[in-house]
């Protein structure tokens, strides 16, 4: 029996468990589907954040504390590996002077998760649409984490002492050379983790997003995209 068969349409060839030939095109080239899109079709990709008319979330109004997490994507303590694919954060309201922003990967490496004790669920949508699997990961805002050490996290991105007038002055001042364009926004950061930064959150590991501004709060709005697979 041949292992490959020419196919030139997309349609179901069999249900799960049936032995079938893999597809090649008319040139004999193998047809592949990207891993993350195959997971998507299985209902295992999710998007978390805020709705278009949702109220944006206050950041910290004090010195940076790792326990005060603006947003987190956290794996369950067992059973599921969470693979972050994409993160975006948009500043929506300026706060006080010298705001700091961080995205950090928190992982104890000890099978002892850093607890996140409180938080409010962000909106999470299954990227396949319809009535598909619910997310196992926690996507929270205004969360409280247990303390963790420098040996238990690595900063993936930061912007420390950012201007406090990104929206009101810098973004609209043509003479400053930093106007708020539609793309490459000065008040937003896009981090396409896939394919450059392969991370698997397991056993309670998390991605934590911080916005820390003293004297008065900044507000931000996040977008997280991730896949979930059973623990190995």
């Amino acid at each position: 029996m041949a292992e490959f068969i020419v196919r030139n349409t997309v349609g179901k060839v069999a249900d799960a468990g049936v032995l079938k030939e893999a597809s090649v095109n008319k040139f004999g080239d193998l047809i592949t589907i990207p891993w993350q899109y195959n997971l998507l079709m299985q209902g295992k990709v999710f998007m978390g954040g805020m709705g278009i008319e949702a109220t944006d979330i206050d950041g910290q109004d004090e010195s940076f504390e790792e326990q005060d997490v603006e947003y987190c994507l956290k794996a369950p303590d067992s059973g599921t590996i969470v693979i972050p694919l994409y993160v975006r954060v948009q500043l929506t309201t300026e706060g006080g002077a010298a705001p700091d922003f961080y995205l950090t990967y928190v992982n104890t490496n000890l099978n002892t998760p850093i607890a996140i004790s409180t938080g409010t669920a962000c909106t999470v949508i299954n990227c396949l649409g319809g009535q598909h699997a619910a997310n196992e990961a926690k996507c929270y805002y205004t969360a409280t984490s247990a303390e963790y050490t420098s040996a238990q996290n690595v900063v993936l991105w930061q912007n420390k002492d950012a201007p406090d007038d990104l929206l009101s002055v810098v973004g609209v001042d043509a003479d400053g050379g930093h106007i708020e364009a539609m793309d490459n926004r000065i008040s937003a950061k896009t981090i396409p983790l896939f394919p450059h930064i392969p991370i698997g959150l397991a056993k309670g590991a998390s991605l934590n997003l911080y916005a820390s501004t003293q004297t008065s709060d900044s507000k931000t709005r996040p977008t997280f995209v991730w896949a979930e697979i059973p623990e190995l």
Partner: protein
Amino acid sequence: MASIFEVRDTSAKVGDAGALVAASINKFGDVPVMDWQYNLMLQGRVFIGGAGIEATDPDGEAALNDTTPTYVLRAPDSGYVVVPLFVRLQLTSEGGAAPDAYLTLINSNLDDPIVYTSGTACTVLNALGGQRNAHQSKFVSTVTIAAVTSAQNVVIWQAKDMPDNMLSVIAVDPDGGSTESLGDPISTIEIPLFPHIPIALTKGGMLAFYTATGTSDSKYRPTFVWAELPDTIL
């Protein structure tokens, strides 16, 4: 045992659909693979929607209203999975002060589609050319849909309180250091959803672009690229 691979050094047809064949390898023994989206394109399943070069762009909205997106890509209520691959939006007319724009994923997660009421069909071309499959999704402008709650959508991109003179002043003022370059124009947003943001619109799911500019309308011109698959893949 016959090899399941065969060295081939040309791209020539090795069989019609249903033929059992060996897969190709090159002279080095490497396996050539065809990207999924290009294979779908060669099957006539990829579409490009937007506006023609001399089309008139529609007015945006004066205020953000979840029921009146400016552009929507919407999956049929059943039968098809729509996979958005790329989104581009070009500001073509400035409006009043502090314009806002949003791209959001709308999905009720309840097998109960957000009702589509009305809209104006945009131009949609099959990316393969010729007389190929017609698109099954709706790609429309000046849209009216049923109300959308915060639990039914997640913002993918937004630009709030943008300058109101991006085209007339900023883009043409070299002293500002922010001129409108060809390669990276300040008045355009490009969102390559593939491969970072895997989304499949099903059961009436939507990708919606909202605009909100007070006092006078902004106008935008879209380019959306998507693939359509039968939902038997699910």
